[in-house]
C-alpha cells in the first residue's frame, strides 16, 4: 500500500509536464507555439513577431497550455490549458477578445468551421461550447459562459476535431473511443446525435486528423494512439478501413537508422487537406514518419521516415492547408530534473512536399536548416524563445524523457497484477472484521 502511495505521489507531480505545441494558420499566415503558459506567435506573411494583447479583461495563461487551434478559415484562434482558462483570439489583430473560465482543466480545443463557436474538452470528459459574436437566435447578447454539449464518461478527452464539411465533431478519449457527433446548428442545446463510434484502438487515442481527398468529398478520419498504430476510418459508419502498425513495422524503422526504444505511442498525426501528406510523430522516434494513403484502396503505408538528430523527438506537428512545409516543435513546460526556468522549445521545418504531388512515393522531404525556414532566425527566435537552443543538447534530451513520462502518466492505465488486486481487496474495511 505504501509503495503505491509513493508511486501516485510521484506521478501527480511529473504529470504536470506539458509538451510544447505548434499550429500553423490554414493559409500559412502565422505560426503559433505554446510552451508552458507562454504563447508565441510569429507572423509568417508579414515576417515579424507578433505581440499579443488582451482586451478580454480576463487573466492571461498562468499554467501550461494544453491545446491550441485555428478555425478553418484562420480568423479565430483558441488556447486553453491547466489554468482552466479558454482564451479566444482574433487573428487579424491578435487581440484576445474573450476569456472563458472552465470548471476543470482543459485538454482539447477546436473552433467550428463558421467561426461561430469554440468547443473545448476537460479532463472529466465533458465537451463544452462557447458562442462567439452576436446571438444568432435573435436573443439578448450571449453570456460568457460555456455550456456542456456532450460527454465521454469521465474519460480524458485527448483530441477534438471538426470534420472537413463542418457537420461533425470528432472526440477521442483515453478509453480507446472515438465518438463522431453531429454538430448541431444550435450547439447550446447540446450535441446529442451520435453518428458513430470508431472503435478499434486497443489503447488510448492521442490524436485525430481529417483528410478530404478531391474524389471523396465526405473525407476520412485518421487517428493515432497508444497502441502505436495509425488507423484510417470511414467515420460516417465508424468502419475501420486500415491500420498501420508501427510496432509491427519497427524493423523497417530501424533499417532507416533510427532506434526505437521505450514506448512507441503515436503522439501526433497531421494530414494535409487532400490527404496527400500525412505525418506522424511517435514517442521516442528521432524524427517523423510520412504516410502514404491510397484512398481508393483504403490503405495506409509508410512512405518515408525522416530522421533527425539523436536528441530531437517532436512533441507536436503543424501543417497548413497548403502544405509547403511541415512544422514540428519539441519542448516541455518545465523539466523537473534540470530545474531550469527557461521555457525551451526547438522548431524544425521539413519541406519539399510539393515537388511531385501526383507521385507521392517520390517525396524529397528534407529538413531545412535554421536559416532556410520561412522567417529564418527571426521566426525561430520568437517561437523557440531563443536562438541557441540547438546547442543545449542536454536540455533537449531531458525534454524527450520528460515528455515520455508525462504521456505515460497522463494516459496509460495502471496495470495491477492479480496478487496486488487481491492485496488491495484484503485491506478493505468490510472484510477486515473477519480476519
Amino acid at each position, binding site marked *: 500500500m505504501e509503495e503505491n502511495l509513493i508511486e501516485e505521489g510521484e506521478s501527480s507531480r511529473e504529470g504536470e509536464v506539458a509538451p510544447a505545441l505548434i499550429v500553423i494558420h490554414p493559409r500559412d499566415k502565422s505560426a503559433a507555439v505554446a510552451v508552458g503558459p507562454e504563447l508565441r506567435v510569429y507572423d509568417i506573411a508579414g515576417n515579424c513577431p507578433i505581440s499579443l494583447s488582451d482586451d478580454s479583461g480576463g487573466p492571461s495563461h498562468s499554467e501550461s497550455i494544453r491545446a491550441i487551434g485555428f478555425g478553418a478559415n484562420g480568423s479565430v484562434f483558441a488556447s486553453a490549458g491547466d489554468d482552466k482558462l479558454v482564451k479566444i483570439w482574433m487573428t487579424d489583430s491578435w487581440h484576445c477578445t474573450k476569456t472563458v473560465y472552465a470548471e476543470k482543466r482543459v485538454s482539447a480545443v477546436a473552433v467550428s468551421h463558421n467561426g461561430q463557436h469554440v468547443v473545448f474538452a476537460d479532463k472529466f470528459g465533458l465537451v463544452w461550447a462557447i458562442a462567439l459574436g452576436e446571438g444568432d437566435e435573435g436573443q439578448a447578447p450571449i453570456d460568457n459562459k460555456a455550456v456542456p454539449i456532450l*460527454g465521454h*464518461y469521465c*474519460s480524458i478527452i485527448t483530441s477534438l476535431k471538426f470534420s472537413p464539411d463542418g457537420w461533425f465533431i470528432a472526440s477521442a478519449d483515453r478509453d480507446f*473511443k472515438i465518438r463522431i457527433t453531429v454538430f448541431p446548428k444550435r450547439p447550446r442545446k*447540446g450535441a446529442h*446525435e451520435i453518428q458513430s463510434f470508431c472503435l478499434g484502438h*486497443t489503447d488510448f487515442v492521442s490524436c485525430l486528423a481529417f483528410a478530404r481527398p478531391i474524389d471523396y468529398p465526405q473525407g476520412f478520419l485518421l487517428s493515432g494512439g497508444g497502441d502505436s498504430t495509425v488507423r484510417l476510418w470511414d467515420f460516417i459508419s465508424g468502419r475501420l478501413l486500415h491500420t498501420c502498425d508501427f510496432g509491427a513495422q519497427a524493423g523497417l524503422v530501424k533499417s532507416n537508422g533510427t532506434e526505437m526504444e521505450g514506448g512507441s505511442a503515436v503522439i501526433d498525426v497531421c494530414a494535409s487537406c487532400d490527404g496527400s501528406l500525412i505525418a506522424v510523430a511517435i514517442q521516442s522516434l528521432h524524427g517523423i514518419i510520412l504516410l502514404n494513403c491510397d484512398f481508393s484502396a483504403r490503405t495506409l503505408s509508410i512512405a518515408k521516415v525522416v530522421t533527425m538528430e539523436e536528441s530531437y523527438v517532436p512533441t507536436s506537428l503543424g501543417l497548413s492547408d497548403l502544405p509547403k512545409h511541415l512544422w514540428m516543435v519539441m519542448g516541455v513546460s518545465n523539466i523537473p530534473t534540470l530545474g531550469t526556468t527557461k521555457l525551451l522549445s526547438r522548431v524544425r521545418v521539413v519541406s519539399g512536399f510539393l515537388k511531385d504531388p501526383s507521385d507521392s512515393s517520390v517525396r524529397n522531404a528534407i529538413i531545412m536548416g535554421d536559416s532556410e525556414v520561412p522567417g529564418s532566425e527571426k521566426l525561430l527566435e520568437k517561437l523557440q524563445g531563443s536562438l541557441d537552443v540547438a546547442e543545449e543538447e542536454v536540455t533537449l534530451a531531458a525534454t524527450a524523457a520528460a515528455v515520455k513520462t508525462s504521456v505515460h502518466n497522463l494516459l496509460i492505465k495502471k496495470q495491477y497484477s492479480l496478487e496486488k488486486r487481491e492485496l488491495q481487496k484484503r485491506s478493505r474495511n468490510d472484510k477486515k472484521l473477519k480476519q
Partner: protein
Amino acid sequence: MSKNNNSNMRQNGQSARLPRKRFYRARAHSNPLSDSHFPIPISPADVDYSQHYPHFFPSERSDDDNGSVPPTKVRFADIGCGFGGLLVGLSPLFPDILMIGMELRDKVTEYVKERILALRATNPGKYENISVVRTNSMKYIPNYFEKGQLSKMFFLFPDPHFKEKNHRRRVISLQLLDEYAYALEVGGIIYTITDVEELGDWMRSCLEDHPMFKAVPEEELEADPVVKLLSSATEEGQKVARNGGQTFRAVYRRIMLEDG
C-alpha cells in the same frame, strides 16, 4: 474464505440446482469511475454471442440449411441487471428475442450466469435467450451494441448516489442518454424505475430534457406486459414491495431528433 470455496465446488458439481444468493454476497456498490481490469470487446463485432446463446448460434455442423441467415442480434439490454430477476421474468414472454444483462459486480455476474445455466438445465429449451456480461455499461455500451441495435433498455432500481458530487455516477444522465439513444432503434423504449423519489425525479427530468426521448403515454404503458415486470420481477422491486415502499417509473420512447 474456505467456506465459500466449498460451496462453489458444490455448485459446480450440481449445476442443475439453482445457485443460492447467500453464497454470492457482494458489495452493494461498485465504482463506475475506476479503470476496468476485466476484458472489454474492442467493438460489437468482437463479441462472441454464440457462447452466450448456444441455442441461437448452432455450431457449424448443423447449419447446413440456414447458412445465409444473418445472426440474431441482442435486442433487449438490462443495464445493472443485479441478480437477474427481470431477465428471468422476460425470457418466457419473448422466447425468440435475445436479451443481455450487464452488471459491474463480478460476484453478482457469476451468480446470474449460474442461475441461467441452472434454469436452462432444469427447463430444457427454455431460458436460452438470456445471458449476462460483466461490464461497465456507463463506459462500454458502444463496445457491445451497434447503432440502433436495441429495442428495449432497462434501468431498474439503479444506485441513487445522493451527494451532488456523485451525481456523475448516476447511470441516467443527459450525456449518457446520448449513448443510449445511439444504441436504441427509433421507436425503442427505455424503462426506468426506482424507489427513491429524488432519483425518480432526476431520471424523469433527464429523459424529459433529452431531445431524442419522448414519454410513452399512460394507456400504452397499461397494455405493455413488460411494465408490470418492472416492479414485480426484480429482487430489488420485490424488496420494495415487501416493505410497502413507493416506486417511481419513467418510460420513454426513442424518437428522431427534430432538426434544429
